[in-house]
């Protein structure tokens, strides 16, 4: 039950801040929409007309996932850095719930609150391009959940780095391009990338949304890969974070910035 209260508190905080700073939220939404328009225009101008529709659909899925990855992975890094600067990080670190649980609920809260924005962006981009994707919730849900779990693992790694190094802003800027790389890379080009976080998940989502594949149409091996990735990256991320927390306690870094 305490878990639930923790999740509720963090989701509410996230929602309040997005709502209270609505112009900022709208600006963020517009920025992403403009980035999408730029990609769409690029395909229209220099893309191969025979594969144009396919490319547009490809870009819609990728950029939606890019947004989600940015929100989950990058935002947690910004949050930790800000909390350290503001002086609230030490309060979080003193919670009897354990700081990793707070981080996890923050990651979940980010997904829950930003999901609405993701839906708005998705429909806005489909409306703009006239390309209507297959939104099969039943098939998409397990893929999305498992992909998000591996994203959480990355989020924990970034949170751990932020606790130790504090000044990670430059790295976070670079991270958005790394995330774009993971999301935009077509798996057919480099199949071994399936074991990197996010990549396989986005590939399967593309199969569902563009090619219309249904739940039973996805191979057992594909499910196993995203399941393995989810567990592997989540465990790696959590272990990394807990070690960073331990190191920060040993070196007295939890309250410094």
């Amino acid at each position, binding site marked *: 039950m305490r878990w639930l209260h923790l999740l509720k508190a963090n989701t509410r*905080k996230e929602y*309040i801040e997005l709502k209270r700073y609505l112009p900022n939220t709208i600006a963020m939404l517009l920025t992403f929409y403009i980035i999408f328009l730029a990609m769409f225009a690029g395909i229209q101008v220099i893309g191969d007309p025979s594969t144009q529709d396919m490319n547009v659909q490809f870009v819609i899925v990728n950029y939606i996932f890019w947004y989600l990855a940015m929100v989950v992975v990058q935002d947690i890094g910004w949050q930790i850095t800000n909390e350290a600067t503001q002086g609230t990080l030490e309060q979080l670190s*003193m919670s009897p719930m354990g700081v990793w649980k*707070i981080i996890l609920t923050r990651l979940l809260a980010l997904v829950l609150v930003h999901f609405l924005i993701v839906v708005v962006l998705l429909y806005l981009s489909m409306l703009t391009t006239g390309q209507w994707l297959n939104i099969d919730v039943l098939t998409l849900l397990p893929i999305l959940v498992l992909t998000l779990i591996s994203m959480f693992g990355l989020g924990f790694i970034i949170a751990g780095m932020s606790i130790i190094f504090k000044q990670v802003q430059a790295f976070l800027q670079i991270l958005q391009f790394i995330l774009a790389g993971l999301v935009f890379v077509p798996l057919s080009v480099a199949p071994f990338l399936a074991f990197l976080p996010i990549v396989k998940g986005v590939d399967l989502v593309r199969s569902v949304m563009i090619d219309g594949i249904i739940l039973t149409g996805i191979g057992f091996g594909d499910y196993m890969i995203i399941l393995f990735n989810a567990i592997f990256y989540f465990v790696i991320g959590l272990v990394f974070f807990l070690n960073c927390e*331990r190191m920060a*306690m*040993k070196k*007295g870094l939890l309250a410094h910035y």
Partner: protein
Amino acid sequence: MESIIEVHNLKKSYKKRKTKEEIHAVKGISFSVNRGEILGLLEPNGAGKSTTIKMICGLVKPDSGRIIIKGLDNHEKRLKALRHISAVLEGNRNLYWRLTVRENMEYFAGNRGFSRKEVSEQIDGLLAEFHLKDKEYELVNRLSRGMQQKLAIAVAMLADSDVILLDEPTLGLDVETSYEVRELLQHVAHDHHRTIIISSHDMDVIQDICERTVIINNGSVVTDDRVENLLKLFEVRAYSLTLGGLLTDQQQQILQQKFPLSQYIPDTYQSTFEVELEKSEEIYELFDIFKIESTPVEAIDRKTVDFEQIFMKIVKGEAKHEMAPSS
């Protein structure tokens, strides 16, 4: 009296980033805190107090030694031990400035696993007690520093923890708010039966509200006694004597030799001689010196010593006394 916090032989050292030189921030500190007590943890700058506080809060891991909070080792059972402790370490910086007063309280309670419903009544009560009810829906960044400080203390109270640690609770506050915060802390300790540990450089605050002080210098505890005892101990030895006329050179020489901690302020009509005696009996020796030239002693006043002077003497090593047991 029951100890709620026991600190045993705590040690912590750091390596300097560039020179790799080892700095011993805390060198084997031991003390205990009784339930319901207001304890002042004092030190000159950089003498190990902040590290000690952060180790008690579970933010810094000691190299060796143990901290027992309500029977729980705060390293081995850190999260369980943290249930009994909350802290205001950076005052108004411990709050979310973009949330309102009530939202802050609800958020921090949520972070300790409480639901909004569970703490709703408690929040109402605390807002009323801390005179923040009319600011309930105000953003924290719009509050005065004093109000932010009061809110930070109220947030720490919400956790239902037995011990509240406060680092510089009156720093940057105006006189009126500082007094209000002092009254609040006394109210919290006595009416809510919480144990309070305060670290502050404001000795008035310590003298005013703390029952006992632990003074740390160079990473070690140099004094652990009740504030009342310290004040009495130093008060009885400090005198100001009003003399009718001047002392001779011979008298001044003897006085300087016998009482190095003294000050002579000459005046043709009424000189003053201020002295701190190590033993009460020394007053007779003093009178013997005045008697040599029949110097009239017109008045003897016991000097009032404030806690700041006592603290300075202790950390400078000018005065020592036996440490009293913590209970």
